[in-house]
């Protein structure tokens, strides 16, 4: 219920955040909205010795158009994304998915950067980022770089971020196709997705079908070769390794993936 003891540091600039993180070393963690990290710390599944609070870095909280892209600051909250007129009109997939993360209280605090950096395969936004073909901008001890979403999610709670490297911006090229769909299958509205599907145009990404969010490559290939939604969706589970857990056996998730991908493709086509 109570986190293990730690030292709290608050950053007033990105520069300072990086310095504090460097000083903290391996046992430091960034704290943004806290709604991925704090629950782990309260159960003592994460025991960082230093917390670097970046929550006040207003310069990382924005949504703007930039050269054919929508640029989202890493500290934009789920609620801000759900309500943003710009995101709603240009990236409705993102707006819609952000609006379904957790519950209102979680959405008021949790940030897109925090969710992506945490990389829970059952979370919604990582798969959405894949479907949108997002690029992530970071700043770290070795400078700035860009990482494409396809290269970002490496394993269970593991990303390409180096220690002390901060995700600063998510850049998404304005989609060519107006077709999109987000299918989040849960028992209760507040639950993590048992299986989720994010579709943007010809891109199909899956939530909770493996240790990372995954592109449904076989589905995308089938669509590219001219198959319709039903036929393409039959390949939804190809190459995936969904968990076997309380919410169902592997075969059930594979079945759900096929059903939800079909529904997502149909809905997306209707919107295109």
């Amino acid at each position: 219920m109570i986190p293990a003891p730690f030292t709290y540091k608050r950053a007033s600039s990105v520069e300072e955040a990086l310095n504090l993180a460097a000083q903290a070393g391996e046992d430091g963690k960034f704290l943004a909205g806290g709604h991925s990290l704090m629950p782990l710390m309260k159960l003592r599944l994460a025991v960082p010795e230093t917390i670097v609070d970046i929550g006040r870095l207003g310069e990382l909280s924005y949504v703007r158009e930039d050269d054919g892209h929508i640029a989202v600051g890493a500290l934009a909250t789920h609620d801000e994304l759900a309500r943003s007129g710009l995101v709603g009109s240009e990236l409705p997939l993102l707006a819609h998915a952000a609006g379904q993360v957790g519950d209102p209280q979680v959405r008021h605090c949790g940030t897109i950067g925090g969710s992506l950096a945490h990389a829970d395969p059952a979370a919604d936004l990582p798969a959405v980022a894949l479907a949108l073909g997002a690029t992530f901008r970071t700043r770290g001890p070795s400078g700035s770089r860009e990482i494409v979403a396809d290269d970002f999610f490496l394993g269970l709670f593991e990303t390409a971020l180096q220690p002390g490297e901060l995700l600063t911006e998510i850049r998404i090229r304005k989609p060519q196709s107006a077709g999109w769909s987000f299918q989040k299958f849960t028992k209760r509205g507040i639950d993590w997705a048992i299986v989720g599907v994010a579709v943007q145009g010809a891109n199909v990404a899956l939530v909770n079908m493996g240790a990372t969010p995954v592109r449904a490559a076989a589905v995308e290939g089938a669509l590219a070769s001219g198959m319709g939604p039903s036929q393409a969706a039959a390949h939804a589970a190809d190459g995936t390794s969904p968990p076997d857990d309380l919410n169902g056996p592997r075969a059930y998730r594979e079945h759900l993936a096929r059903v939800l991908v079909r529904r997502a493709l149909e809905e997306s086509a209707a919107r295109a």
Partner: protein
Amino acid sequence: MSILGTRVVRTEDPRLLTAGGTYVDDLRVPELAQAARVTFVRSPVAHAAITGIDVSAAKDAPGVVAVLTVADMDDLPPPPPDSGLTGTEGAPLPLGGPWSEPLLAVDRVRFVGEPVAVVITDDRYQGEDAAELVSVDYDLLPAVVGFDGALAGESLLFPAAGSNVVCATGTPADGAAFDGSDVVVEREIVNQRLAPVPLEGRATAARWADGKLTVWVSTQNAQIARFILAGALGLDPANIRVIAPDVGGGFGAKIGVDRDGLIVAWAAKHTGRALRWAETRSENMLGMTHGRAQRHAVKIGGTRDGRILAYRLQIVQDTGAYPRMGGFLPFLTSLMAAGPYDIGHVETAYQVVVTNATPISAYRGAGRPEATAAIERAVDLFATEIGMDPAEVRRINLVPADRFPFTSPSGATYDTGAYVEALDKVLAGAGYAELRAEQERRRERGDVQQLGIGVASYVEITAADADGGETARLVVHDDGTATVYTGSSAHGQGHHTAWAMLVEAELGIDMSKVTVIHGDTDLIPAGVGTYASRSLQLGGVAVQKAAVEVKEQARRLAADMLEASEDDLELNVDLGVWQVRGDPASSMTWAQVAAHAGEAGLAADVNYTEGKPTFPFGTHLAVTEVDTETGKARLIRHVTVDDAGTLLNPVLAEGQRHGGIAQGVAQALLEEMVYDTEGNPITGTLVDYAIITAAELPSFELLTSETPATINPLGAKGIGEAGTIGATPAAQNSVIDAVSHLGVRHIDMPLTPARVWAAISAAEEGIAR
């Protein structure tokens, strides 16, 4: 016009809505100002021998006052001798004997979460840190998991007992009883293990000073808690004061005081330091008792034209690691097995087994939801087998209104009832014919979203311990206000409002001038408390009787003051004044009358029992939509009659029904405490244990029905558990009904999407069910 039976909003609410309730962890009383904090060290394994406990590192941690284990418990009375009772009499097992449960674990742990040590620290945060430093050596033993694991007996929780079967009783199966039936259906059904999850977990604070123990505990029964404390700690009850402050829900799992609370009280006495403890939710999920956990073998037989002739219910009760309630729950299940039906031959039998899981105790309904769920599934299975509408089968078999009092073949005598009328009211209110028509349309079209309609009729037993009675003391003060001291112990039920209504109705003292006090053994030494849906029919009636006695005392006093004959004295209830008949100028207020009572005061003490339980009843109808591609079920309508006799305050009764329905539906669709093969809980937090939220429920359609009880002047039966009892089978039946055209006959609860889909798949593959 009397205030009784009218809609009155609660007097409890302004405080709860502004300053908030004062639950145990909110107490800021002087006695606890220097209280230290208790943190438990609990077993992380299901079954093991304890071979060593090292507290040295913990003792040195910051803020640690003491670290206590069973080795420190040298100041407790010895356990009582084995009385030889085995719990088959329908009562809890006594403490002594081979099944006895210690306070802190002695040399064995038997469930994940069992308390092994306590760490006492100056503040709460230090407690969790220090508890991590207590090192316990466990030699793992094979875990006993599930009904069959227990029955197999390969691993025993209590080797001295020689078995995992705590008790067994009942009628041996009589095959001949089903000979006359055209159709016989048999099925194994599970009524799954649940966690009560009151929003406030368990909490206890205690202080030992000047030879007296004061214990504040989140309890449904302060007096029973005192009794338990006295026995466990070897103290004279006169030296124990138990106070129940506001309690954040109980649902049967906060009866008296439990093992962990006793440990806190002992530790306070042992260390001489005031202590407080409020468990975390993770602790609560494993440390608070669970509910249900019965496996049923049902057998139902009848004629092709719908008459049920015979029913057998065989129960295995998983009681968890320690048989605290013994045979009590399956005893009640057996008693209510026949439900509201007139069935010629009913036989029941039960076994109670221990497993390496949290102990089982009462949880809203306590044995009766299990009975209703079993027979309501059986009736639907029978209906499907004979191809008859399930509502029609019920109508044919429900006890008709002219047969009351009716002694059911499973042993209970139902007092009053209008079962068929309740069924018909619900069917009409739900628009049953149109629902079936819509279901048929969707089936013909082969819609993905199918409609299911589930019906459940029930009768339930309230105040099962009616002999225990309830107490009330009513005092009218010389300022015209009144105080009720009630033995009942509300934890959300609104007794303060209801009892004030009773005083106003009887005496004409405005509710705003009536204070109700409960839950303090110094102020109310005798009382039973709130469980078994007993409070209105026992506690409320006690309040009314006390008011009647006060009225008669007042009549004598007023007559004396007004120099008139008692026969000429009238109480004007509307104005709340005593008058001589025909002389309105002669007026005595309650204040004046009370003042005239002198030293003795104007007061009455009542200890009331009606001696017999009562039997509320009803019908629930659930409408669900099931997505046949994913298996996800959604409750879209829930219509009920819950007839608990004459309503005192419809607002309170509706609230009880709503809450019960939500918990009942949650059992059907979402909740289950799950353990893996090693006895580790998999659903140990609210992330995995799926409490139902507002988003999964519709607004409910409650219909009114009042068939008075005849046994008490309020005409009241109990309403608190009825909603849970009726809702679970209605919801379960509706989901199965939604996919019955695909060949599905039964799905065990909870009917999660994965389970429903598995049933659909199996049926589609033509596997015989």
